[in-house]
């Protein structure tokens, strides 16, 4: 079944303390070559019928993302089985 995937990220100018906390923990894993981590949110929407990108964009703009602090991108995820691998 085709799903619409919405990726929501904090705008670049908004501080991401969660991402910073993760970045600061990486040296404990022995990882020392990462300069920045930023955390966002992925939302999958399944429509009853065919995926409606315009409707998905409206949902993202009005509810899923706060345009004051966040940007979003939308794409159709065609093959759900590919993800299992």
């Amino acid at each position, binding site marked *: 079944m085709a799903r619409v995937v919405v990726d929501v990220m904090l705008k670049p*100018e*908004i*501080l991401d*303390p*969660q991402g910073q*906390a993760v970045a600061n923990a990486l040296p404990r894993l022995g990882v020392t070559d990462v300069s920045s981590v930023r955390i966002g949110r992925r939302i999958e929407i399944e429509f009853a019928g065919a995926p409606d990108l315009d409707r998905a964009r409206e949902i993202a703009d009005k*509810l*899923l993302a*706060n345009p*004051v*602090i966040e940007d979003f991108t939308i794409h159709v995820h065609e093959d759900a089985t590919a993800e299992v691998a």
Partner: protein
Amino acid sequence: MRIGVVTFPGSLDDGDAARAARIAGADVVRLWHGDSDLHGVDAVVLPGGFSYGDALRCGAIARFAPAMDSIIDAARGGLPVLGICNGFQILCEAHLLPGALTRNQHLHFRNRDQFLRVDSTNTAWTNSFTAGQEILIPVKNGEGCYVADERTLDQLEAEGRVVARYIRGNPNGSQRDIAAITNEAGNVVGIMPHPEHAVEALTGPSLDGLGFFTSVLRALAGSAGVNAGGHQ
């Protein structure tokens, strides 16, 4: 005067907000998020808590409650509205106030008594204070870091719309130490700390919170020199 206090699923401080309004001398009307009828109230308080479990973003879902549709319309028409903590987050999500509340910069939930300086008394909710007055009320939030773009912050300051700032320590990293702001008309105020928890000597660190509730009663009575729609 009738002050409505809205209860959302996950509201915590609706009882204290109602109690504070009653102590200030108001008749309290409990409003339900699913009811678009405001029952003729003269002002509304959106209380603190975790509406809808903070799902998605704090206040993001509460903003679409039937009661909020009516409150947004009425607020644009001048109805005094005070959003406390989660209520402040809801007002930002509803675009009645600019900016947004984000995770505390240190990532810790912060719960303590907090000094504020009241910077603007030209609002429906702060006319009982004197400009520059220092007050002590509890702050308790995990997502209270106020952010907005530089232009918006400059505009808020230039127009006297920063209502209160944190002093003697910023508990959450809010830009320019902002604890409370108002809209252009001065009838809508959002505040992150909790005035409703500082209205009785037995339970609060002071009685300073009472001023927010007595202010709106003065504004409604028209005796305050400013009115709900007359922000300068």
